[in-house]
């Protein structure tokens, strides 16, 4: 009876191999029928396709690595002059920008890290397109505010800041935000603390009005990201990203030939 289990085992093994057997045999026959060179050709091309796909994925994923710092803000807030000062230290006359400018920037820290600084136009009709184009590549945003005429523009500043903060890509990537209160060389300029308080109050109101805004005509509603904590007044500390307020003056207190007063900005940029 010892052979019985053997026979049973064999039968079982046979039964197990049996379902595969006919398929394997058929496959072997088909492969042997084909020209070997043809088979090699097929294998090579499959390998090439797989390698290309892997390669492309690697390259495409590399592009969305955030390596840029965006200079955003309203029109005439001093972004282009700040761009010039940060990169070359020189004072240049500027006009309203129509397109973006970008250049590599070496941060002033021990590591000597360098990333790309991009200056976006601030005009209302160009802003949304350029933000759309560059927002996924942003690792930090420098929001430039004109401190001298802030009181008149507070609603426009707050609306743009709200638009940036509630954007889906921005709330996903969480780039750090530096609010640079520019034009401090003018005597009527507001301090960073005051600007921060006013913006918090304004964003509070905007949360209500923006969520009540009409939906677009094709049915797509606006951003549904709620800023800060529900039920409590809005504060910048409630945001998931790092927010910093600082003062600077791109023109500098000594006029056009002197140095710009951007030490605090450079320090913050070095910390990125």
């Amino acid at each position: 009876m010892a052979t019985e289990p053997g026979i049973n085992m064999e039968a079982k093994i046979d039964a197990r191999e049996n379902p595969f057997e006919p398929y394997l045999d058929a496959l072997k026959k088909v492969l042997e029928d084909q020209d070997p060179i043809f088979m090699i050709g097929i294998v090579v091309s499959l390998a090439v396709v797989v390698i290309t796909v892997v390669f492309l994925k690697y390259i495409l994923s590399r592009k969305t690595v955030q390596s840029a710092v965006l200079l955003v803000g309203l029109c005439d807030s001093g972004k282009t002059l700040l761009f010039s000062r940060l990169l070359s230290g020189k004072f240049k006359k500027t006009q309203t920008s129509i397109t973006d400018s970008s250049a590599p920037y070496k941060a002033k820290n021990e590591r000597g890290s360098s990333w790309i600084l991009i200056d976006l136009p601030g005009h209302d009709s160009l802003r949304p397109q350029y933000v759309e184009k560059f927002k996924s590549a942003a690792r930090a945003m420098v929001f430039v505010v004109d401190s001298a005429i802030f009181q008149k523009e507070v609603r426009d500043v707050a609306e743009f800041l709200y638009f940036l903060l509630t954007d889906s890509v921005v709330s996903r990537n969480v780039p750090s935000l530096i609010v640079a209160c520019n034009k401090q060389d003018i005597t009527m300029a507001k301090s960073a603390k005051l600007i921060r308080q006013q913006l918090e109050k304004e964003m509070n109101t905007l949360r209500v009005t923006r969520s009540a805004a009409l939906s677009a005509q094709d049915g797509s509603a606006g951003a549904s990201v709620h800023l800060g904590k529900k039920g409590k007044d809005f504060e910048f500390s409630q945001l998931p990203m790092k927010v910093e307020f600082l003062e600077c003056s791109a023109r500098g207190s000594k006029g056009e030939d002197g140095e710009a007063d951007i030490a605090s900005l450079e320090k913050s940029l070095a910390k990125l």
Partner: protein
Amino acid sequence: MLDFFTIFSKGGIVLWCFQGTGVTESFTGPVNALIRSVILQERSGNNSYSHDALSLKYKLDNEFELVFVVGFQKILTLTYVDKFIDDVQLHFRDRYKNELEQKGALALLNSHFAFEDDFKMLLREAEESSKARGPTSMRSFNASLKSQKTVKSMIETKGGDKGKEQGGKKNKNAKKEGKGEKAKASTSAQKTEENGNQGLTQEEIIQKKREEFIRKRMGAPVEKPSKSPKPVKEKPKGKEKRVWTLGGSSTKELDYSQSNGNGAHAAGDQGLDAQADPVCAFLFKMFLSPKKGAFGGMFGMLKGLVGSKSLSQEDMEPVLDKMRDHLIAKNVAAEIASQLCDSVAKKLEGKVMGTFTTVASTVKGALQDSLVQILQPKRRVDILRDVLEARSQRRPFVITFCGVNGVGKSTNLAKISFWLIENGFTVLIAACDTFRAGAVEQLRTHQRRLNSLHPPQDHGGRPIVQLYEKGYGKDAAGIAMEAIAYARNQAFDVVLVDTAGRMQDNTPLMTALAKLIAVNMPDLVLFVGEALVGNEAVDQLVKFNQALADHSMSDKPRLIDGIVLTKFDTIDDKVGAAISMTYITGQPIVFVGTGQTYNDLRSLNARAVVGALMKA
């Protein structure tokens, strides 16, 4: 004589500037105004702009992303400016090619452009060339044509040939005359060319035509014998052998096989590039090229396909024509479509295309960008926030609706008041349509329905919507003023003023509307226009704005602040009216009406509208 000249990059950095002697004001303001109103609003079709007392001319260099602007006093008429800008542009490009070609803004920031000497030289040349043509003196009678004619020739006889004024005297003095005339003809032709912008006067046109006529005659009579002083009828000389310009006497000229090989190919390149798929075009050209001596041609073809081909006007012409027709088919007003296409052509001229991009795709992309840019609002549009602001200042927020007959003013007014009361604001409707039968009753029905949707019990016993009306036949401006005063007393948040529809040509009604707006100074003047309108939109908006500007007493008249686009559900994708309206006024579309119930109120999504517009 120029006030200033600046060269700056499109990113905003000024590369070089020149300020005329004695000019103290900075030019930043006027140039910024130029950028905002012309370049950003896609009106760059004609290249001049006036701001206060200055007249600005500009030129875009799209290859290196530069803008050249020159400013001078409006009262001066300088004829050399156009050619001067072109010369300066070419000179600047050639001289600083290296710095400009580098990508990134570092090169622009770090290099110093010392262009003064070249600029002064070019300016001197331009001024001298304009002075060289001295004032042309009037001819004396003896030198004129009239003295050459005999009196008899000038008498018109019945059925006579008054055209054939070949006076004998004319023939004798013909040769002497011819040279003087020719010289004068060339200078005055030059003068008229230079004065292209100023326009030819009637006299100069007649003089020019006379000179051409004389020149033609001068060629012929040298051969003809001049016999008698009497007017001689010109005999037909008999059939002359016809000379074809392209036909040669020998067949050697018709042989294009060797040296012109590349030239023929270059011509072929242009045609294929513009239309065919680039890969197919490349293969097609490869098969067509002859084997020997065409390597240069082949490399030229390759170069033309793989980037570094700059766009010229001829390349873009067919594509732009097609796009213009497409836009017009989508209900964009005809003149707006052509202005838009001109502006896109100006923006793309000289631009270097990327690899494997066709002209059509570049032009379509640029047109799409400009359309989105036009539809983006140029100021913040947030009515609820502004109403809250007005409430904090304890005054009502006044919105006035105006438009032609039958566009949907009362319907959309009801929709907007529904939206406002949903957000908790109290609304007063002022029935200033005192003309159309049933207008007041219509608004009363809306008021009742809205109040039943939001009963007064929920809002502290006060009806959330009230109607202020004074019946029919009264003065609309007076009713509006009383309504606003009533709202202020009763602390209403918003006042919606409904006016009667009126045609834009109807002057007394336009005056009445302008008076209503000027007297009451509403916070928002909304023009209600239907999406079905075509070329009429341009006329309506222009005339409405004109009327509002003319009849207001102040120096800063209240114009149309926003547009309500109604009946949007009746058009599928022929959404061109949105473009026409925003282009003409520069104001945003605040509301879009998509139906007749209270919920059918939307805001505008620029990308969706442009997508529907560009869809084939």
